[in-house]
C-alpha cells in the first residue's frame, strides 16, 4: 500500500512538471526567430498562421512599366488582326499546315498550344492565365508566370542584358529579344578569333 502511495505522488509531480514544460514550450513556439539580410536576429511574437502573408489577389499592385524596344516581330506579321479578322477563331489543337508553318514549338510543347499565350479573339494581345489581356511590349509578364525566378532577377537587372548608365537611365530588353518564345534555348554563336600565341606561333 505504501509503495502505491509513493508512486501516486510521483505521478502527480511528473504530470505537473510536464505541464509546465509544455506551457513554456508553447510560449516559446509562438515566438519566431529569424535572421534578416544583414544577419541581425529578429524575434517576433506572431503565431505561425499570422506570419503567412495575406495575398490580395484582386487588387494586386500594377507591374512597373519597363521601357523596352519594339518586340522582334517577323517582318509584316504585326498587327496580327490584319489577317486574323478574316479567319474564324479555331481553338482546336492541330498541326498548322497553311500559315505559321515555320514556327516549331519547342517549349513544353506537350502541355502548350498557341492560345495558351496568344488571345483567341483579339489576336493583337497576349493572354495571361488570369484572363488579363496584355500588349506584346509587356510579354515579360506572360513569361514571368512560369519563370518567376528569372522575372525577379530580370527586374533588378541580374538576368538578361541591361544597358545604359550604371548610375542613370537603363534600357531593358524583352525576354523575346534573346529567347525565341517558341524555341527559347539560346542559340550557339561563332566565337571571335582566339588571342595570338606568344612569339607569333600558329594555332
Amino acid at each position: 500500500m505504501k509503495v502505491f502511495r509513493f508512486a501516486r505522488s510521483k505521478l502527480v509531480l511528473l504530470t505537473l512538471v510536464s505541464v509546465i514544460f509544455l506551457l513554456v514550450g508553447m510560449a516559446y513556439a509562438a515566438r519566431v526567430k529569424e535572421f534578416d539580410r544583414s544577419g541581425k536576429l529578429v524575434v517576433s511574437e506572431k503565431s505561425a498562421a499570422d506570419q503567412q502573408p495575406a495575398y490580395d489577389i484582386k487588387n494586386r499592385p500594377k507591374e512597373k512599366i519597363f521601357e523596352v524596344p519594339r518586340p522582334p516581330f517577323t517582318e509584316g506579321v504585326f498587327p496580327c488582326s490584319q489577317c486574323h479578322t478574316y479567319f474564324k477563331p479555331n481553338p482546336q489543337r492541330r498541326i498548322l499546315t497553311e500559315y505559321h508553318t515555320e514556327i516549331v514549338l519547342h517549349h513544353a510543347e506537350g502541355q502548350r498550344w498557341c492560345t495558351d499565350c496568344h488571345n483567341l479573339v483579339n489576336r493583337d494581345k497576349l493572354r495571361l492565365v488570369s484572363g488579363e489581356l496584355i500588349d506584346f511590349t509587356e510579354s515579360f509578364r506572360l513569361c514571368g508566370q512560369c519563370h518567376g525566378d528569372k522575372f525577379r532577377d530580370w527586374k533588378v537587372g541580374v538576368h538578361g542584358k541591361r544597358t545604359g548608365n550604371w548610375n542613370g537611365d537603363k534600357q531593358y530588353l524583352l525576354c523575346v529579344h534573346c529567347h525565341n518564345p517558341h524555341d527559347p534555348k539560346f542559340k550557339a554563336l561563332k566565337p571571335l578569333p582566339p588571342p595570338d600565341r606568344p612569339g607569333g606561333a600558329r594555332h
Partner: protein
Amino acid sequence: MSEIEKNSYDQHRSRRKFLKGMAAGIGLIALPGKDASASMWEEFFQKHFRELSKEELKKVLQRLEKGYAKQFSKQVTVKATPPIEGVRYGYALDLSRCIGCRRCVYACVKENNQSRKPQVHWIRVMQLDKEKGVDLSHAEHYYNPEKVPEKGHFYMPVQCQQCENPPCTKVCPVQATWKENDGIVVVDYNWCIGCRYCMAACPYGARHFNWAKPGLPAADVNPDTHYLGNRPRPKGVVEKCTFCIQRTREQPGRYPACEEICPVGARKFGNLLDPEGEIRYLIENKRVFILKEDLNTQPKFFYFYAT
C-alpha cells in the same frame, strides 16, 4: 705635408674631377637632345600624377591632347575625371550564362585603344571542363570551334579583379600604380618605368606590357580618353583593365564596354555601396565566389551562378 702625400692628394683630386666630368657627360646624353621640342622637356620633368596641382594637370592634359592630335591627326580628348564620392565599383560575371564568344575581348580592345599589333587583350576567356570545375590547370584560352558553347565546357573570362588588397601596387618601385578611392587600380603611364614587377605580382595575369610601340591605327582610336585609362600608351609601360574609367566615372556614367556588348547579359556592373544595386542583390541572393580567394587579394570582381 710630405712630398709623397702631396702627390697622392693631387692624383686623388684629378681622379675625382674626371669622374665628375664623366657623370655630367652621361647625364647630358640621357637628356633630350637639342632638337627636342618643349613638350618633350615638359614630359621629362612632369611630376607624379597625384602631386600635380590643378593648373599643372590642366597643362599636362593639354600637352597630351596636342601630342595625340599630331600623332593621329584627329581630335582626342584626355580627361582626368576624379572618383565619385560614395562609389566603390564592383563587377560580377554569371558563369552559368557566359558562352565564351569573346565579344567582350574585342569590345574592350576597341574602347580602350589597345595595341592591335602586337596584340594586347585585357580580357582572357578560358574554356574549362564542366567535370573538373574551376580548375585553372585545365584552362584553355586558344579554343576556336565553329560554334560556342561546346558541350561539356563552361567559360570563364578573366580580367583585372580590381583587388581591394592589390599585390601589384605594393611592388611598384616608383608608385606608378595605385588604388583610387573608387576602388579602381590605375597606372600612370608617364611615371611607369616598365620594370614589370607588377605583372609578376599579379596572380590573375591581368597586367600587360607594351613590348613594342603600340600598333594603333588612327582610324580606330577612341577619342574619349582618360589620363589613367584608355589614352594611347607609349612603348615600355604596363597597362590593365580600369573598369572603363573614362565611361564609369561620368554622371550619368555608361556601363563598361564589355558589359554593354555581352550578348547573353552575363556581365553585371554597379556600385558596391548601393544596397539597392544589382551587385549587392546578386551577392546577397546568388552563389558567388571570387578567384583565388586564398591569396587574400579581395577582388571586387565576383563570379556567380544565377541558376
